[in-house]
């Protein structure tokens, strides 16, 4: 186990960072946030195909890179740092991992298309789904003779998807997005808006016989979301530091006031801890590729690392964005400054895939700290 970054991971980071610096500066994300919220198709094409990010988690024999959660985590750090409006988490991590875990010819064929970035997919579940709340399967969609009917709310990445992976009647189905109705709703997060997805006798091909792959995908998504939150928090800290070194009041840089220095030192430490926790989760997910959520036997270590990372990083990212706003003063309240994109993403990420409280609750079992006995 290592919590550091390998050379290969740093090279991947540099490639992603260069692309984002070139194609996705904060001003461009801000401009696109209203005209085409959550979408930069050209950027996604470059990331997915040219850099090969779409196929990172896909085995080599299916045309993917056969890389691990560690590499995907580094991509997410950079995407978080740029609040990049691309469906990497929803397609290349969550939907892809569900299909990897499905196995089977139908899933493998779809993975071949995903690997080269020809197809983009999304899991048709609410972004607010907690990985721990799946003991009873979501009943939103039912399947009858290969036809799906029902409605799923707050689906992230559906607007960018050609393919939807849909849990229905206890199994997983692949649906062409064009056959469903995808309505993007006005969302708190301007760079990853959610959509309402409606199926009305929509044809679906079975790809998974049960919901185990869905649980694994949610756990993978939750564990790697921590790296996105880390990158986001790092941007907020770096941007705040640059500001307080520049901004003068009382004839001094405001960053020379001890009250602000101590707050920023504490925030830095919170991010140091977030980095260690996010790397811990990515490393655990990478070492046990078969492991999923808490209810899967022998996967306790992975589940624990994911829960720890999410319990900490969700809060840390929100805190970083809120401190960034406060320490920018009035400038921080303006639409013109991109930091509100980070605040909105951070707050949405806090709810995504289990709140920090959901993950702490899960640790009662995972860390053997049982709840009080009933009175």
């Amino acid at each position, binding site marked *: 186990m*290592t*919590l*550091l970054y390998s050379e290969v991971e740093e090279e991947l980071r540099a490639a992603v960072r260069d692309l984002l610096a070139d194609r996705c500066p904060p001003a461009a994300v801000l401009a696109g946030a209203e005209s085409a919220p959550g979408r930069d198709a050209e950027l996604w094409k470059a990331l997915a195909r040219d850099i090969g990010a779409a196929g990172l988690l896909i085995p080599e024999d299916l045309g993917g890179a056969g890389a691990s959660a560690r590499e995907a985590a580094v991509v997410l750090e950079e995407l978080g740092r740029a609040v990049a409006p691309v469906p990497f988490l929803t397609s290349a991590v969550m939907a892809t991992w569900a299909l990897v875990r499905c196995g089977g010819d139908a899933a493998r064929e779809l993975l071949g298309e995903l690997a080269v970035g020809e197809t983009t997919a999304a899991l048709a579940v609410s972004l607010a789904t907690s990985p721990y709340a799946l003991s009873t399967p979501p009943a939103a969609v039912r399947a009858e003779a290969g036809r799906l009917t029902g409605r799923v709310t707050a689906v992230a990445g559906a607007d960018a998807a050609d393919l939807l992976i849909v849990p229905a009647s206890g199994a997983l189905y692949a649906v062409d997005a064009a056959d469903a109705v995808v309505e993007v709703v006005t969302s708190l997060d301007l760079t990853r808006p959610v959509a309402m997805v409606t199926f009305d006798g929509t044809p679906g091909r079975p790809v998974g016989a049960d919901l185990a792959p869905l649980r694994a995908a949610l756990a993978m998504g939750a564990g790697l979301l921590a790296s996105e939150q880390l990158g986001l928090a790092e941007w907020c800290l770096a941007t705040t*530091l640059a500001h*307080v*070194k520049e901004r003068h009041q009382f004839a*001094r*840089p405001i*960053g*020379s*006031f*001890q009250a*602000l*220095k*101590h707050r*920023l*030192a*504490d925030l*830095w*430490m919170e991010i*140091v*801890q*977030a*980095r*260690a*926790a996010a*790397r*811990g989760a990515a490393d655990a997910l990478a070492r046990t590729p078969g492991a999923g959520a808490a209810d899967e036997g022998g996967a306790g270590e992975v589940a624990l690392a994911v829960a*720890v990372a999410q*319990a*900490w990083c969700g809060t840390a990212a929100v805190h970083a964005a809120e401190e960034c706003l406060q320490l920018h003063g009035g400038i921080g309240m303006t639409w013109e400054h991109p930091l509100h994109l980070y605040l909105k993403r951070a707050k949405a990420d806090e709810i995504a895939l289990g709140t920090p409280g959901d993950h*702490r*609750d899960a*640790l*009662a079992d995972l*860390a*053997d*700290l*049982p*709840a*009080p*006995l009933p009175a």
Partner: protein
Amino acid sequence: MTVDETAVEERVRAFLARHDPAATPPLDFLRARFDAGLAWVHFPEGLGGLGAPRELQSVVERALTGTPQHDVGRLAIGLGMAAPTILAFGTEEQKRRFLRPLWTGEEVWCQLFSEPGAGSDLATLATRAVRDGDEWVVDGQKVWTSGAHFARWAILVARTDPDVPKHQGLTYFVCDMRAPGVEVRPLRQITGEAEFNEVFLTGVRLPDDLRLGAVGDGWRVAQATLMNERVAIGGAPGRRGGGMLAEITETWRNRPELRTHDLHRRLLDLWVEAEVTRLAGARLREQLAAGAPGPEGSGVKLAFARLNQALSGLEVEMRREEGLLYDDWTFRRSESVDFFGRGPGYRYLRAKGNSIEGGTSEILRNIIAERVLGLPAEPRADKNVPWKDLPR
């Protein structure tokens, strides 16, 4: 030649073949272990090490589990602070003289840094060292000195030039605790015991070959000690759920009648914080394996202090009526530093020192802000003023 894991394992095997841990007197075993380069593998050969990467130490520790060990609590200052400083700044002669008995525990070390008038502002310290031929004559008072009552040697910072600004006039020495003029008085703490001491230095004569580093370079040498101290306090390798957390989680599991929903929520919060701090420490040690401790160690020490205080406070509260009791207020001198020993009341009180010793949490935040984050310093009244002209 770089020493790898296999080579270290081979060394340990060969060492154990020659020295049966069950049949060798403990001190002989520890001396032999030092001579075999298995004391601290990242130290140079001949000085208790193999010149190997630091992370291979864990290979040695695993392989030598159950063999005679030195008392880490008693030797903490020697191992964590004096040794790396001697290694970095000592002469060959000093390294050969001091490191072996330091590691085996034959000679215990203490630290003569803080003074009644120089705590957070260490560089303003007033203990004087005046040159007299081949010797230095030291006069002053030091405080908060753990283990001075059983220490053979001390690391000492003293003022050798009062006419220059405060950081420039300091020199670093090894102080002979048996020299005439060294007087150690116990300093009773809020726990009731005396782990710390006041040390009075009156006309103490130290030969010049006990100087560590150049005359006037004491601040730089002391910085190396302090960085190592923060890593020693905050970066001790821990297992998940270990340290202060082990005490409270054991109580939690064994005493279901004490559990409430409020305590449960707060305990889970702290458990997560302890785990991410442990991971941050583990990551720091991985980085350390490649180089010297940087200011990042200050962050882990800061987090460690906060956690110890919060966890020990929660445990006293959780125990309710038992929390009203204390095991023993009898004045006594402790033989070792132990943050986790004795009862919950002791742990709660002792943990209060964690945010003061080795740099207060406030000073550590300044260090992080200025040295890691590059934030500008506060305007200062003591810059470029000779030490003797500073208000005191």
